[in-house]
Each structure stands twice: as structure tokens, then as C-alpha cells.
């Protein structure tokens, strides 16, 4: 469990990135921090592994105040994946994945064996092990980034817009992989994005930010969709339009769901006849975002 208590971050130039922020991030769940740029979400993520230290307030990991932990050691115990992968361009794929184990003193040979296993885990062909990052596609690079983040089997995985720079098809695939990995490995995941669809797809808990590090709403995707805290949230999640605003229309004896443009989005089923129809047809629809 990660806990923020009244955390404020003011940068030397006077910008307040985060203001009196409190949050409990439950273990073995995916918490998504979502907001537009300048909302302080990345700053919050970086305070967990002490890339940024708060001006005031306390951050605890499993009851330990992070400010009492040695930053380098702390960072080696937490997985970190960023946009554009942040891979070391002068190291081969396997060495990139083994970066942190090698820093922690694991033998080269053992680190390599583990790196190859991780390549399997994130769906990378082992034949890529001796390539340099620049020889991989964007999607493959992100997979390497995720594998590196998992290399020391950390309890916590921090992801900073990891899929922001890959094309939509690959992004959808990587999102499913992340859900599968989290399900299999039971990590505490903190995920930063500006994409609300991604937030609702991945998050058990979603935190929506306004500018200046203010929290607009915290909840499960279902809770937020059912009851947006204010107009900002409603607008941000697009509850009033598009594929989130579905209406029921009777068609040939069945209830068909249509979006605000009148396009068919799916059919309404009850729990009993779920087998008979696919609930949501729209590709990237979030869990439970269709009314029941």
C-alpha cells in the first residue's frame, strides 16, 4: 500500500505542481492517475520513488516514510516504465532488461537467463535479445521497457504514459498484456495517462486531476461514470456525448444501445442471456461503462 498524506510540491520557480494531495493506493491493484498535462500526475508518480521530493507532506510505502529510505536503493526496488521506453541506446535488449539486476550485483549469466525469461513474459521473441533498442519498433521497445521494469520482481510498478507514443493497435495490445501481467504477477501498479479510455480500461481505481495537482474525483470507473463529481469530470470523461452516452432503443423485440450520434453500440442483455450476445461492440469500451 502506498499512502500520500497532504503532499504538496512547489518547484523552485514557484509553480505548485501538487497541492495538499492525499490518496491511498491499494496493493495488488492498478491505480490510474489521469489528467491533462500540467496536472501534476507525473510529479506524484515520481514522488513515490523519490525522483521528486515533496515540499511538505508524507509518502509511505507499507508504512515506511519514503523520505527515510535511500533514493538509489528505493528506485532499484521499484519498477519504472516511461514514455519512449527510456531504454539505454548503447545496450542490447537483454542487457537493458538486466540493467537493474546488474546494478544490484546479480551475476551477468544469471541476469541474462532472467532477461530471456522476461522477454517471453512480455511477448518478445528471444531472437531480439542481441539487438540494440534503435533496431526495434516502438511497440517492441515499450515491451522491453516493461520487461526491464519487472526484472527485479518489484512489488510496485510505476508507469508514466508508457503507451503514449505507440500506434493505437499496438497500444490496445500492450494494454491487454499489462492487464494479463498484473493479473498473473499481482503487482501494485501506478499508471499515469492523459487518456481517459485507457484509465477506465486499466484502472481498478481511477484518480482524475484538474490543473495544478487538484483531485477532481477518485473512484472505480463505474463509480465515476455513474456519478461524476462535477461538471469538469463529466466533461473530461465525455459522459454527455459519444460512446459513453448510450440510449436504449427497441429494435425487433430487443433493446439496442445507440450512442449520441445514433450509431448502434451494442445490445442490452441481462445476466441470464449474456451468452447469447456480445455486450459492447465498441472496441475500446471500458469495463462496465454500459448501463445495466
Amino acid at each position: 500500500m502506498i499512502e500520500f498524506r497532504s503532499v504538496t510540491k512547489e518547484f523552485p520557480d514557484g509553480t505548485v505542481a501538487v497541492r495538499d494531495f492525499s490518496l491511498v493506493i491499494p496493493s495488488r491493484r492498478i491505480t490510474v492517475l489521469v489528467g491533462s498535462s500540467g496536472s501534476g500526475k507525473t510529479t506524484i508518480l515520481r514522488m513515490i520513488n523519490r525522483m521528486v521530493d515533496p515540499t511538505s507532506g508524507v509518502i509511505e510505502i507499507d508504512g515506511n516514510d519514503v523520505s527515510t529510505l535511500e533514493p538509489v536503493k528505493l528506485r532499484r526496488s521499484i519498477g519504472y516504465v516511461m514514455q519512449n521506453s527510456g531504454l539505454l541506446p548503447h545496450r542490447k535488449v537483454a542487457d537493458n532488461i538486466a540493467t537493474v539486476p546488474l546494478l544490484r550485483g546479480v551475476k551477468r549469466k544469471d541476469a541474462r537467463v532472467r532477461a530471456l525469461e522476461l522477454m517471453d513474459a512480455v511477448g518478445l521473441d528471444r531472437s531480439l535479445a542481441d539487438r540494440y533498442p534503435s533496431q526495434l519498433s516502438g511497440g517492441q521497445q515499450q515491451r522491453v521497457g516493461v520487461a526491464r521494469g519487472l526484472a527485479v520482481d518489484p512489488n510496485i510498478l510505476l508507469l508514466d504514459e508508457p503507451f503514449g507514443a505507440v500506434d493505437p493497435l499496438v497500444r490496445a495490445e500492450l494494454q491487454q498484456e499489462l492487464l494479463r501481467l498484473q493479473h498473473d504477477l499481482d503487482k501494485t501498479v501506478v499508471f499515469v495517462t492523459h487518456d481517459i479510455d485507457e484509465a477506465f480500461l486499466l484502472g481498478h481505481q481511477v484518480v482524475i486531476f484538474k490543473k495544478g495537482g487538484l483531485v477532481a474525483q477518485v473512484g472505480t470507473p463505474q463509480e465515476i461514470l455513474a456519478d461524476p463529481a462535477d461538471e469538469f469530470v463529466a466533461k473530461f470523461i465525455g459522459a454527455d456525448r459519444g460512446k459513453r452516452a448510450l440510449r436504449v432503443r427497441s429494435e425487433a423485440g430487443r433493446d439496442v444501445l445507440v450512442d449520441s450520434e445514433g450509431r448502434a453500440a451494442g445490445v442490452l442483455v441481462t445476466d441470464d442471456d449474456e451468452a447469447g450476445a456480445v455486450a459492447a461492440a465498441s472496441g475500446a469500451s471500458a469495463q462496465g461503462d454500459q448501463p445495466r
Partner: protein
Amino acid sequence: MNWLIENAGQIWQLTLIHAGLSVPPIIVGLVLSVPIGWLANRYRASRGTVLAIVGILYAVPSLPLFLVLPSIIGTKVLDPANVVISLSIYAVAIMVRTASDAFAAVDVDVLLAATAVGFSTWRRFWSVELPLAGPVLLSGIRVVSVSTISLVSVGSVIGVPSLGYFFLRGFQVGFPLEIGVGIVGTIVIAVVFDLILAGLGRVLMPWTHRRSRRTRVAIRDETPELVEAA
């Protein structure tokens, strides 16, 4: 032609001496400019001042420096150390700017990621910053190498032997072949040094030579992934 054969021994010997005098300034230039360049890049405010100072150093004419240096550091006038030290100063003067640019050219996202996964500042310098600054550092040191090798010749004027001796004497006695030997010899040394440096770059920085395959590889690998995704 006879002159060449008769003097082959001396030509070879002066070539070796010339090359030998060129090596220390190149090494000193690299070793000193890396920390200075790193600091100038790290502490942005100091960058202008540092670069101005090294710029002034480079503006000092070489011949007077060779002559003044002995009185400053207490060497003999004919001591080759005067040439080596003077040329080291020029090497640093050229290299500091390049080194500062080399560190500035390292992708900040990579450095950030390195810190985020747990590199200490010291370790990050040696394993990430320095290698990634390598290609630009190498290009700078190749310039320093050529410049140093040509400046060594000037030392002959004050009596420190090098290939410069041949064109000095060639001019005095009006013997073009001897001048030619001095020039060609200097060029040969410069080319050999450059090949060695480029070769070292290939060995020490293998990742910089795989780029050409990038496009082809990317296209081949992208396809199955797209098919999977679909």
C-alpha cells in the same frame, strides 16, 4: 630519389618522434576536457565563462608559448615537454567546447530513466553519460588529433625535433623534395591516427554502427506485430 634513400633512417626516426610528441597532448586533451566539459554542461551558468576562458587559451600563439613556457614551469628551452604542454593546452581549448556539447547532446529522457531505475550519479556518468557522449567526443578528438600533429611541426623552429625539421631545412636550402617529405609525412601520421581513432570508436561504441540496418529491421519486425494485434 637518392636523398630519400640516404635519409630514410632519419625520416623514419623523425616520424616516430613526431608521432610520439603528438600522443600525450591528445590524451591529456581528452582526459582534462571531459570533466571540465561535463561541469560546464551540468552547471549551465558556468558554461559561458568556461568556454570563454578556453577560447582565449586557443588564441595564444604557439611559438611565443613554446618560448615563454620554460620560464613559467622551469623546463629547459629545448625540452620537448614545452611542446607537449603547449599542445595539451590547445587540445583542451578545442576539446572543452566539444565535450560540453557532447554531454548536452545526451538524451535527457535516457538520463532520467537511468536515474529512475536506480543508477547513482557516479555510476550513471560512467555507464550512461560518458558512452552516450562518446560519438561527439570522438569527433572532437579527431579534430584535436589532426591539429596537434600539424602543430608539433612548429616545435622544430625552437629546435625540438619533428618532421617540421624537413620543411624548415628544405626552405632554408631551397630543396622542394625535403619540404615535400615533411608535409607528406605529417599527413600520413594524421591519417594513421585518424584511422586508429575511428577504429577505436567502432570497437568501443558498436551501437553507433547498427543504425543502417534500422529501417529494414523495423519494417520486418513491425509486420508480425500488426498481424497479431489485428
